[in-house]
């Protein structure tokens, strides 16, 4: 592999997963905070809130995973090599 392409791919892979973690991080923080507030107000609804929270967290998590998929493609199955 051309060293320039290799180094660019490694940097791009790191940026892809790093930048992709920012938004979902903020989103997950917001969602968890709201869920905790909801549980504090209404402790009897905890089961329902927890189930919904986990499901939504998985959706946000997948945004980071898309970045991870891009970085894995760049590292292991680089189309430009």
């Amino acid at each position, binding site marked *: *592999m051309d060293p320039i392409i290799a180094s660019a791919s*490694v940097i791009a892979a790191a940026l892809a997963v790093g930048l992709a973690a920012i938004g979902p991080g903020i989103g997950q923080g917001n969602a968890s905070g709201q869920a905790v507030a909801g549980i504090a107000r209404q402790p009897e609804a905890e089961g329902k809130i927890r189930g919904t929270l*986990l*499901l939504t967290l*998985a*959706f946000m*998590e*997948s945004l980071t*995973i*898309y970045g*991870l*998929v891009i970085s*894995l493609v760049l*590292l*292991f*199955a680089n189309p430009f090599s």
Partner: protein
Amino acid sequence: MIDALTFYNNLTLAELEVGNHFYWQIGNFQVHGQVFMTSWFVIALLVIAAIAAITNKKVQTAPSGMQNFMEYVLEFLRDLAKNQLGEKDYRPWLPFIATLFLFIFVSNWSGALVPWGLIEIPDSELAAPTNDINTTVALALLTSLAYFYAGFSKKGLGYFANYIQPIPILLPIKILEDFTKPLSLSFRLFGNILADELVVAVLVFLVPLFVPLPLMALGLFTSAIQALVFATLAGAYIHEAIEGYDEEEHE
């Protein structure tokens, strides 16, 4: 293919093989043999469980043991489908959604719980079937087919009205959605499972004993959630296809 990580392979303790496949040649197609083997294992497991449940001679009114477990699984899946599709429409789609959930769930967990590493195969290693993008794309495309079929069988050509229903200006986005749905479904599952296995593999490489255990438990948890997410989304997409805007029910 993985020059960057080949140093892992010098250690027998931790192996990491991404992008290496055990190829089978079938006609003009090259297929990934390791995925087939593990998929067959998962399918065999599910079929055996299903046959055992069907041929159970001594069904009790007060279930215990295995029967209790099977009834719990069935009720869980029925509630999952019912929550998404509603009381009226869920029954015809229950087998599809339940099969998706069970297959994904059992394959995810088989990747973590079955000691595949003990079985040596050339060029690759056995892992969860959902670890391979081809499996997840196949499942996602099946979901696409299912919701198109659901829409057409319910409304006929009137299904196309869905594309311009709230306002016609959303038409391009609605068309785009048909492509992004399977894309996001397949990438979500594939990425999550691969990420789990990579994290565990890297950690095993760094600290071989005990330390990876909590992460493995976390992996079990996330892979169960991913199976749930996939089945839930399949149900939601099918519901979206059969439920028009004009006859939307108020909840």
